[in-house]
């Protein structure tokens, strides 16, 4: 009946489980980051801030980002069964703020789902085909690319985007263990492809890369791109500048700051939640190493001047860029390997170029799952009607919330495809804004919710007399505020578009107002939302 565990006497009872291993935590941490998308953000960094030092930005910013993301880990240690930022914030600050900012997060996940669909159609698939076409000198594949830019391009994007969004709905509807296996398999392929890319580049000296590139794209294409960029006003002078490096921080956050999703691990008898503490930093450290390898490999093989020129043209003067695919690391790695034996090149190029589209197919469903789970939580807390959390008896799928999420994502797909109104980085602004209140919750936890704080392992960690959780919260707050403000005001980032910026502000504001309206309506129905998080003092 009894077991003895290190001077504690434990009786045989339910819930005594072993926590996940560090390896599982590592897998979760990496799984939640959009590895393949970082290649795209790399391109932006060269185009928008050619004098930014990506190594300093990613290492320095990455460490800062890692500490900031630990806000989620620490709150998950204090409240392991809470299930996410909505409840963290509702419980620690106020339910109106929890709902308001979670609404913003859910809105951002909806937009990301539509973005994933759009980019799969316009970038993911064409890049893969184009990279293979160039590397294998297959004119047939290159000819296919014209379909992605021709008169029916937008309808093609709608069709592919719709299929992608529907697939997200299907994926969040299957049992979590199958979903997990799907994610793990895809992430394995993504990691392998992403690791191969810089290794191939490191194995390809400059002169060979230049020769390959000219052979694939056209005579003297390499130099032509540099010349065209200069002619278009690109600053290709060498050297780094402090502001430009600093301005890369939102790119760093966008690339690295999502491993927080892996912190929801249940547990019973608890000490320090090692898996929670490990999952976030492990994921970010792996990503930093990978990204640094990409930058270094690209600059060694292709040259910084050329990469900057290509990305400058892709962003500011695409017609002058003699490429039919975006100038991302996967494409350049494919070109670097093109003279290797065919039996090696073909699977290599396939693996390398699967990383980007597959990232859409891992990050997209995860975002959708976050959105669906949030709606479940709102429904359980009576903020939303109970039918939103309906689960089908046969398939056990959250079909109502998944359907709502994907339908709205599909509507935004129309907006994305046919209008210029939503710019990409306003989406990350939405997600980052949610992190602001999480960091504030961290700061406030020891003071506003002493009971929860004292009951957790966090109460044992201090720097002097200051709780560690509050220190982490302050660091996190500063980090997300810097990135959020830069997203809002720096013209290179999309959120400065009035509609995008407006939606970042109006969504939580609308959510805040909506909370009080819903509270009033529920009161008329006999449901008192003030009870949900009301304090109950012990007798």
């Amino acid at each position, binding site marked *: 009946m009894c077991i003895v565990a290190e001077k504690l*006497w434990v009786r045989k009872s339910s*819930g005594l489980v*072993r*926590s996940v291993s560090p390896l599982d935590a590592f897998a979760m941490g990496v799984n939640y980051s959009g590895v393949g998308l970082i290649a795209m953000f790399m391109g932006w960094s060269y185009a928008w801030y050619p004098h930014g030092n990506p190594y300093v930005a990613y290492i320095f910013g990455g460490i800062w980002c890692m500490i900031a993301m630990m806000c989620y880990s620490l709150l998950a240690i204090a409240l392991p069964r809470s299930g996410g930022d909505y409840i963290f914030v509702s419980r620690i600050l106020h339910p109106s703020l929890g709902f308001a900012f979670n609404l913003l997060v859910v809105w951002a996940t909806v937009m990301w789902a539509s973005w994933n669909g759009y980019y799969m159609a316009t970038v993911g698939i064409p890049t893969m085909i184009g990279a293979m076409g160039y590397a294998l000198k297959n004119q047939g594949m290159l000819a296919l690319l014209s379909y992605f830019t021709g008169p029916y391009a937008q309808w093609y994007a709608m069709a592919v985007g719709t299929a992608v969004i529907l697939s997200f709905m299907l994926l969040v509807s299957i049992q979590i263990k199958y979903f997990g296996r799907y994610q793990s398999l895809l992430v394995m392929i993504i990691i392998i492809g992403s690791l191969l890319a810089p290794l191939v580049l490191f194995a390809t000296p400059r002169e060979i890369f230049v020769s390959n590139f000219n052979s694939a794209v056209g005579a003297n294409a390499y130099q032509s791109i540099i010349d065209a960029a200069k002619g278009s006003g690109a600053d290709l002078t060498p050297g780094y500048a402090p502001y430009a490096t600093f301005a890369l921080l939102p790119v760093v956050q966008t690339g690295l700051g999502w491993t927080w999703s892996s912190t929801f691990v249940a547990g019973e008898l608890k000490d320090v939640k090692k898996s929670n503490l490990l999952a976030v930093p492990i994921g970010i450290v792996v990503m930093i190493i990978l990204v640094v390898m990409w930058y270094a490999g690209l600059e060694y093989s292709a040259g910084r001047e050329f990469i900057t020129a290509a990305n400058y043209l892709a962003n500011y003067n695409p017609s002058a860029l003699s490429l039919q695919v975006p100038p991302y690391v996967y494409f350049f790695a494919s070109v670097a390997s093109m003279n290797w034996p065919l039996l090696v090149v073909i699977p290599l190029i396939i693996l390398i170029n699967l990383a980007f589209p597959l990232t859409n197919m891992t990050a997209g469903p995860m975002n959708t799952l976050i959105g669906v789970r949030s709606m479940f939580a709102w429904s*359980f807390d009576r903020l939303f009607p109970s039918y939103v959390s309906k689960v089908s008896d046969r398939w056990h799928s959250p079909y109502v919330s998944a359907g709502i999420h994907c339908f709205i994502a599909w509507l935004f797909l129309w907006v994305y495809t046919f209008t210029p109104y939503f710019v990409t980085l306003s989406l990350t602004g939405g997600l980052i804004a949610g992190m602001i209140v999480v960091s504030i919750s961290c700061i406030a936890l020891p003071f506003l919710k002493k009971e929860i704080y004292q009951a957790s392992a966090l109460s044992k960690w201090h720097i002097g007399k200051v709780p560690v959780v509050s220190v982490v919260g302050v660091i996190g707050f500063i980090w997300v505020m810097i990135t959020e403000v830069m997203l809002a005001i720096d013209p290179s980032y999309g959120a400065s578009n009035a509609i995008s910026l407006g939606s970042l502000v109006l969504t939580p504001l609308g959510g805040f107002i909506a909370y009080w309206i819903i509270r009033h309506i529920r009161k008329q129905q006999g449901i008192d939302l003030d009870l949900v998080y009301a304090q*109950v003092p012990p*007798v």
Partner: protein
Amino acid sequence: MKTRVFYATDVHGSELVFRKFLNSGKIYKADVMVLGGDLTGKMIVPIVEHSDHVFSANWPSERTVKPEELEEFEKEVRNHGFYTYRTTVEEADRLTSDRAKMDELFKTLIAQTLSKWCELAETHLRGQNKKCFMQLGNDDMLGLDSILEGRENIVSTEGKVIQIDDEHEMISTGYANITPWSCPRDIPETELSERIEAMAKQVANMKNCIFNFHCPPYDSGLDEAPDLDQDLKMKASGSGVSTKPVGSVAVRNAIEKHQPLLALVGHVHEGKGQARIGRTLCINPGSEYTEGILRGVVIDLDEKGIKSYTPTSG
């Protein structure tokens, strides 16, 4: 006629959460308070006195406890759902190597604490005109039932049909289907089914009946628990911890067959939520006793049925 019910479950020995439960009637203005099982703790923290009158304990990590800190430390341990036992080095070693004696110690401490809780409940609820119903759950040792019986202001509900107001009856059991830990009140599904049916056939008006079953219905969404391997380690995948339904088929069958008004369940702490099985609303408020949070649900009943319900987290 309107009756407000407050339901919570799975306090697992946390004195802080139990004390909150006792105050829940006042805070939530509930007429009826129901505590759904798994009342007792899982661990003893020995506080070992050394020859120099300093005490040591290994919770949450190795530490010394000064005599003036003892009371506060013991309170903190109790708030987390554990028991304390002041002992000597020699006795601690003896107990560690003698399982039978350790069992006896557990029984003693659990029984003492449960009695103390009942006395606290009797005192606090005196004069409040509220009904308080309690039962033991599958995790609670056998032989404790008599402690809940014959109490002022507390009604022990295991195996009984109880009228909670003029319109609503409640049947209750804290037993559950077999778990990987073979808990004291884990029983085969057939036995659980017999227990439930024995109560159900005594219910006069099943349409208005409340099932107060500690174990949730199988595959209801309220019973998703971490999937475990043979070493009781959580299976993790790329998306996090894998889960599977662990509820009772007997409970599910009973709900499907009898279609009561309401089923209040617990047992799976992560399984908070609501589900409908036919006309029956099933609610698992979950449990966060380790965090000192009293999770529950406030349900307003009237002559037509369930007027409203609100999950709580106090």
